[in-house]
């Protein structure tokens, strides 16, 4: 084999993608990283110097601490809620008789295809000062004062759970499909109660699905833009909306680039370390 000339075909077949990606992904990403190493002056713009002052500013400033803290707190909370409601829902879906199973699978997954803007708009209509929440509150006799979840952490959490929970459901659903239903029967005949079967047999087998769903939900929440921008607004800034403002309002591109780089690095670190964890923990147990 070693004497044979290297087959060029696979390189030719992947070349269009690779060249396109180097020029239009590699170069812009590199430029963003380099940009983050310049300083910025509000009168003269981007400086030609090299500095890590942007990173120091982002990592040292309590203002950014608050934003990063809020973002990852939000991501954690949304992930936990998605686990708490998405896992049982996937279980219910898997045990529904057809045709209900197909119908509700469509209902639960279908929203993933609908623009995030539209889905968030729905919650904005609920949350707004003249929204349904206010109507319900006044109907229940809580007075005419508007009840609003707009520009609140709670509002963002609810809307993001709605946007992202289908990813948890589908991930757990896929794991559930792989379970041998006889393994649950086997545990039952060995004397386990239904609750024990759920806890000791079913749940451990869908753990990989729960973990991969969690990582998807966490990563997408941490970098979410549309929902925090519409529901959270300027009052509840997260990393993505803060970077957006640096770029398009303050025009401090180098600082915005530094925020983007940090977000990217955190994102990749989380995904990669998750994959390592799964490999170590589950390699012997599951395919």
């Amino acid at each position, binding site marked *: 084999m070693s004497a044979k000339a290297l087959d060029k075909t696979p390189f030719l077949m992947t070349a269009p993608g690779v060249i396109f990606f180097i020029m239009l992904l590699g170069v812009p990403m590199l430029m963003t990283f380099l940009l983050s190493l310049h300083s910025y002056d509000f009168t003269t713009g981007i400086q030609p110097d090299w500095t890590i002052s942007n990173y120091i500013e982002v990592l040292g400033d309590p203002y950014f601490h608050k934003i990063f803290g809020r973002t990852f707190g939000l991501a954690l909370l949304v992930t936990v809620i998605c686990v708490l409601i998405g896992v049982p829902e996937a279980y219910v879906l898997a045990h529904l008789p057809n045709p209900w199973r197909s119908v509700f699978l469509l209902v639960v997954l*279908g929203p993933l295809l609908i*623009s995030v803007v539209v889905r968030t708009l729905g919650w904005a209509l609920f949350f*707004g000062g003249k929204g349904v929440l206010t109507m319900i509150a006044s109907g229940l006799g809580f007075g005419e004062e508007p009840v609003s979840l707009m520009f609140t952490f709670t509002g963002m959490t609810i809307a993001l759970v709605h946007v992202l929970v289908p990813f948890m459901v589908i991930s757990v659903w896929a794991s559930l499909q792989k379970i041998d239903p006889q393994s649950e029967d086997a545990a039952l005949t060995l004397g386990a109660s239904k609750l024990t079967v759920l806890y000791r047999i079913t749940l451990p087998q869908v753990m990989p699905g729960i973990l991969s769903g969690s990582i998807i939900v966490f990563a997408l929440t941490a970098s979410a833009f549309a929902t925090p921008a519409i529901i959270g607004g300027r009052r509840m800034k997260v990393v*993505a909306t803060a970077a957006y403002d640096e770029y398009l309002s303050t025009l401090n591109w180098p600082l915005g680039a530094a925020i983007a780089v940090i*977000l990217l690095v955190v994102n990749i670190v989380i995904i990669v370390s998750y994959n390592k964890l799964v490999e170590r923990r589950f390699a012997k147990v599951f395919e």
Partner: protein
Amino acid sequence: MRRLGPIALCFHALFVAFILAPLLMVVAVSFTDKGYLSLPTDGLSLRWFRAILDNPDFIDAFWVSVWLALVSATIAVIIAVPASLAIARKKFPGREVIAAFLLSPLMIPHLVLGVAFLQFYSKIGLGGSFYGLLAAHVILITPYALRLALASATGLPREAEDAALTLGASRFTVFRRITLPLILPGVAGGWLLSFITSFDELTMSVFVASPATQTLPVRMYHHITQTIDPLIASVSTVLIVLTFGVMLILDRFYGLDKIFVGKG
């Protein structure tokens, strides 16, 4: 099949209500006959759907999105098909690196892609152009097309192609008559998923699009940050109905669950 208890079914009903509530809310508000946000308690009206016709910027943005999604999904598939065949079928040095590279946009937050393209295009003078937007979308959606193509190419029976070769077919004939028809479902599914992903994309496009090349989500986003009115609800309702149609097609031919496993 084990029966579900009443608690499980109650939970399920609440969950489904939670999923549908905001969508139903949007649809309900779009039928109001009032000039402000309200539920259509005094009867249904189509005035806000007629109002879309008086707002050409939404219609223009819609066509930008459709055209952008059509072209970018097609380019993504053209890139993905040969790449998927090489990656799935051949062993060559750098194979895994190339695969990871072509799938890497999945790991990059759209915001990061957006700021990267914003700076890049302003440097090379493509800022706000349709072609810049197009290239950015191709980068974003190629991984989706690639992943579905890879799944089909991996499951391809080698023997069928070998059999065709021994029966006297040329390499190109084998590709055209055996390989392509076998991976076509995956490729078509990948195209459709790419189309929808491009059509719905907001975060990256918001950085790259200029007022002249605004996509529908970007147009809607800017509208919502200014004002939330029944007009945006009626535009959204139209989108929901269109998406529902696409969803039925996707589910009919591929099964939604198969397409979404591992998306994101």
